[in-house]
C-alpha cells in the first residue's frame, strides 16, 4: 500500500517518541518516486507507442477519417 502517506511525520515531536526522520523521509521519497515512476512509465510508454504506431511512415498508417471525409 503506497497511499495514504503518513503526514504525522511533521507533527511527532513528543518527548520520548523517537522517530528516525531520515529513514522516514527517504521511505516517503521512495514511495512517492514509485508512484511517479509507475505513472510516468505508463504515460511515457503510451507516448512512445503512439509515436511509433501512428507515424505516417508506419506500414499500418492509413488516412484519418477527417482526411477521408474531406473535413481536414
Amino acid at each position, binding site marked *: 500500500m503506497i497511499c495514504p502517506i503518513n503526514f504525522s511525520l*511533521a507533527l511527532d515531536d513528543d518527548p520520548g517518541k523517537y522517530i528516525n526522520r531520515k529513514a522516514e523521509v527517504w521511505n516517503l521519497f521512495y514511495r512517492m518516486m514509485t508512484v*511517479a515512476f509507475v*505513472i510516468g512509465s505508463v504515460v511515457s510508454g503510451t507516448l512512445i507507442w503512439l509515436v511509433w504506431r*501512428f507515424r505516417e511512415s508506419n506500414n499500418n498508417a492509413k488516412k484519418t477519417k477527417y482526411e477521408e471525409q474531406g473535413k*481536414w
Partner: protein
Amino acid sequence: MTLEIQKPRPIWQIMFSTHHTDVGLLYLITSLAALFMGGTLALAIRLELFLPGSQFISDSMTFNRMFTVHGTTLIFLFILPFASAVGNYFVPIMVRYKDMAYPKLNAIAYWMIPPAFALIWLGFADFTWNAYAPYSVTRAPGPAADMWIFGLKLLGISSILGAINFIVTILKCKHPDLPLSKIPLLAWSYLTSSLIMLVAMPTFAAALLMLLTDRLGLSGFFNPAMGGDPIAYQHLFWFTFHPEVYVLVIPAIGFMYDIIPRFSRKPIFSHVSGIAAFVLLSIVGFASWAHHMYATGMSFTEKTVFMIGTLSAVPASAMHVFNFLATMWGGRIKFATPMMWAVGGIALFFSAGAGGVVNSAMPLDFMTHDSYWVVGHFHLFVMGTIAFGSFGFLYYIFPYVTGRMYNEKLGKIHFVMSFIGTIMVFFTQHILGLYGMPRRVFDYPPIPEWIAMNQFITIGAMIIGVGMVIFLINIVYSSGKGKEADMGDPWGVGGEKYYYPYQSKTPHH
C-alpha cells in the same frame, strides 16, 4: 498573395510601426537575442562548475552576477517576450480582428523592454532572480541592484499593458460571429495567462517599490534591523511568481495545441477540456505560492494547505497531456520539426510535473530545498516544456513570418541535440541534488560523485549549446536565402489549406 520577402521594407518602418505583426516581429527578435545572451551565460556557468575550484571566473560575486542575469534574461527577456511575439502575431488573427485592441499601447509595451534589457545587463546584479531580502536590502551592491529593480519595474508595466491588450482584444474585439467557446485554444491560452498576469503582477510591482525604498533607507518593510520582515518579501514575490510559472507554461501548451492536431491530421480531441484545463490552471496557480517557502518556518496547517493547492494543479495538467495523447491516437502523424519539439515537450512536461509532485510533499521539500534538485526541476519545466514548445512554434511560424522554409534537417538535429542535452543536464541535476549539492555555489568539495555528475551535466549543456548554434545558423540563413514556402501547406500534410492566412496581414492602418 503578397509575400513579405517580395516587398522588403526598411527596418525603421517596422521599428516605428504599431501593426501587430510588426510589433510581434520586434518581440521575436528581442526574445531571440535574449535567448542567446542568457544561454551563453548558462554555458559559462556550466564550464565553471566542470571541476571544483575556480576555473575562469575569478570570484563568487562574479558567478552570482552571472546566474542572476542568466535567470532574469531567460525568464523575463526570452520566454515572456517570445510569448508576446506569438500573441501579437496570432491573437488578432484568431479572433478575426484587424489588430490588437490598442495598437499604440502595444508598441509602448514592447518599447519598455529594450531599456529594461539594458538596465539588467549594464547593472549585472548579484542577488539572484529572486532578489530575496534582507541581502537585497542591506548588502546587494548598487547601482547594479537598483538598475535591476528599475528594469523589472519596466518589464512588469510592459507585461500588464500587454495583458490588458490581449484580454480586451479577445473579449471585446473578437468577431461577433465567433463565440468565446470557439476561439482557438492558443487564443484561450493568452486569455487565461493574461488574466493571471493582471492579478499577480501588481503584487510584485508593490514589492519592488518597497524593496527600493528599503534600499534607500526610507522604509524598513523587509529590513530586520528596522523591524521589517524578510519573509514578507518572499510571500509577495512568490504570490506573483508562482502564478507567473503558469503565465510562462500556458502559452507553451497553447503552442502545442496548434501544432499537434496539424501534424496528426486530426482536430484536437477535446476543445472544451482544453479550455477547462486552462481556466483551472489559472485558478489553482494562485493556491500554491508558499510551497516555495516550506523551509521558512510555516505552520503545519499552512504547509498542508499549500501542498494540497500545489497538487490540485495535477488534474489540469493531466487533462492537457491526455488531450495531446488522445489527439495523436488514430492520427497519421508527420514528424516535421515542429511536431518533434511538441512531442518532446509533452514528454518532458510530464517528467517535470512528476518531479514537482514529489517536491510538493513537505517532508521531502526539506531535503530538496535549495539543492540542485530544485534547479533540475525548474529548468526541466522552463527548458523542457516552455522552451521546447516555443522552439517548436518558432519553426511552425517561420514560413508565416519570413515567407521561407527553414532547413528541416538542421531543425531536427537541433531538436535531437536539445532533447539529449536536456535529459543529460536536468535529470542529472535532480540526482545531484539528492546527493546533497546545494544550488547557487561557485565551488564545491571534490566529492567524486559530485564531480562526475557536474562533468556529465556540463557535457550535456555543451550539446544543447551546439544545437543552438545550428539553430541560429538555420534561422539566419533560411530567413534570407531559404526556399520560398508554400504558404497554403508548408509541410505537405495535405488536406484543406489550413495554415495561417498570410493575407490576413491587413494593410497598415
